[in-house]
């Protein structure tokens, strides 16, 4: 980063600090009722209080756990199913259109069905999160596999490679940019569905925390939870794009 980029960044932080000051002023002057809008000072204090008492740690861990398990299950299943469908023309003509038809379905509409089958349990939450997060990954994998340069397959055939070697050595590396982009999209989906499931099923997590705080009109705790959710959303997406750049750079270097 050169000097002017750093200066712009500093200026940009100053603007954000200005907005927070404005928020504080609004809260101090009680322009909005403090029942709805705590100042940043109260939200921050609630955040510190929650972490020092350990409450927020366990809620944070709960949400991260739901998100991670659901997302990992979706990634594994999505890539596997996507690879099977994407690498065969027959599967692509027979199965892929049904999947495209299902895609615009709001995933949350599956929640009542999952509740009916599994009850208000962890298993229900994991099923819903994995079911929601699988779509971007699976469709990206199908697309990535379908878009592999056909001549590469011809080369593989003339080298008499086994189907597994074709997938792991040719198709997966060539489809990985698509797959990684799909995995980044589904992280957001996983976070949103974790929160929804926690709200509905009362599972330990930040979704439950913000709902309880709202019901008790503890707005400072509520804002602390929302801030924490934003931090999770931000950090996971930054981590994912870093991993994406790393992997793709590594791959480019190998070529």
């Amino acid at each position, binding site marked *: 980063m050169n000097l002017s980029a750093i200066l712009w960044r500093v200026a940009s932080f100053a603007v954000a600090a200005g907005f927070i000051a404005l928020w504080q002023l609004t809260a101090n002057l009680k322009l909005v009722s403090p029942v709805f809008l705590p100042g940043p000072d109260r939200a921050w204090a609630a955040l510190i209080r929650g972490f020092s008492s350990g409450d927020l740690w366990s809620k944070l861990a709960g949400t991260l756990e739901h998100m991670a398990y659901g997302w990992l299950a979706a990634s594994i299943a999505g890539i596997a199913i996507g690879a099977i469908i994407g690498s065969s023309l027959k599967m692509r003509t027979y199965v892929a259109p049904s999947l495209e038809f299902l895609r615009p379905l709001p995933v949350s509409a599956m*929640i*009542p069905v999952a509740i009916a089958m599994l009850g208000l349990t962890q298993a229900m939450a994991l099923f819903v999160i994995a079911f929601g997060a699988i779509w971007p990954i699976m469709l990206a994998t199908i697309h990535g596999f379908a878009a592999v340069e056909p001549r590469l397959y011809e080369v593989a055939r003339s080298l008499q490679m086994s189907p597994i070697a074709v997938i792991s050595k040719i198709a997966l590396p060539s489809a990985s940019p698509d797959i990684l982009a799909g995995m980044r999209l589904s992280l957001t989906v996983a976070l949103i569905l974790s929160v929804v499931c926690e709200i509905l099923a009362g599972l330990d997590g930040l979704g439950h925390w913000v709902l309880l705080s709202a019901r008790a009109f503890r707005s400072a705790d509520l804002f602390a*939870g929302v801030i924490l959710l934003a931090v999770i959303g931000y950090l996971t997406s930054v981590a994912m794009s870093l991993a994406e750049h790393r992997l793709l750079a590594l791959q480019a270097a190998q070529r």
Partner: protein
Amino acid sequence: MNLGNAKDKVKALVLPLALLLAFEAWARASDLQSDSLAPPSAIITALAGAFADLSILAATRDTLFSAFTGLALGSMIGLAFGIAFGISDVLNRLMEVTIEAIRPIPSIALLPIALIALGFGYRMEILIVAFACVWPVLILSRAAVRGIEPRLIEVSRALRLPGAQRVWKIIIPAALPRIFVAFRLSAGIALIVAVTVEIAINPLGLGAGIMLAQQALRPDLMLAYLVWIGIIGYALNILLVVAQHRLFGRAALSGDSP
């Protein structure tokens, strides 16, 4: 995917039809008694019943009203900021940290805040939908405005068009195809968020309808709602894709893979 010829379309229907028939046959053979599943014939009967007593139509109206009002509100806000950030690099850089701090808030996390501030009903749902719809429009319209042929801007300067006219006559028309792509994405998001809010907490619309059917242990009605929500999502998607091709033709395709 190639849906171009009729043969492929028929092939695409084979799998879903076979699954439905197999499920129907299995449900009848095993005399299915379940709180979570119902045979396709029962689902169709329940859907017809919900249409006959108009309950599903009223729910559809509520959901679409919230989704579209939120979409309109969010798109306008996103478009205004997107164009402003696209035109002025200074503004864009100054606001960067603020935007980066607000954008990752999961829309659904705002639900409790909207709940205590506005209570149950349309307003809280519209607010959350609007928040979710702002971002795709903002990001893509900013990119679209930046991608405008610089000579067009030069022309507008040479013509000494005042600022508002420059936006209205040059910038918006030039960026419109890509802005519409953003709008299409946001429309899908609007429906998803509206249904999610209704399922999570808000007692109106299709989301509340499907939750009620589940709690009443009516799997046929629950799955009928699910099918109907799927049809609406699919129809909305098709409608917007067709509109995009009709309105912008080839120009729209250039911005289709953001």
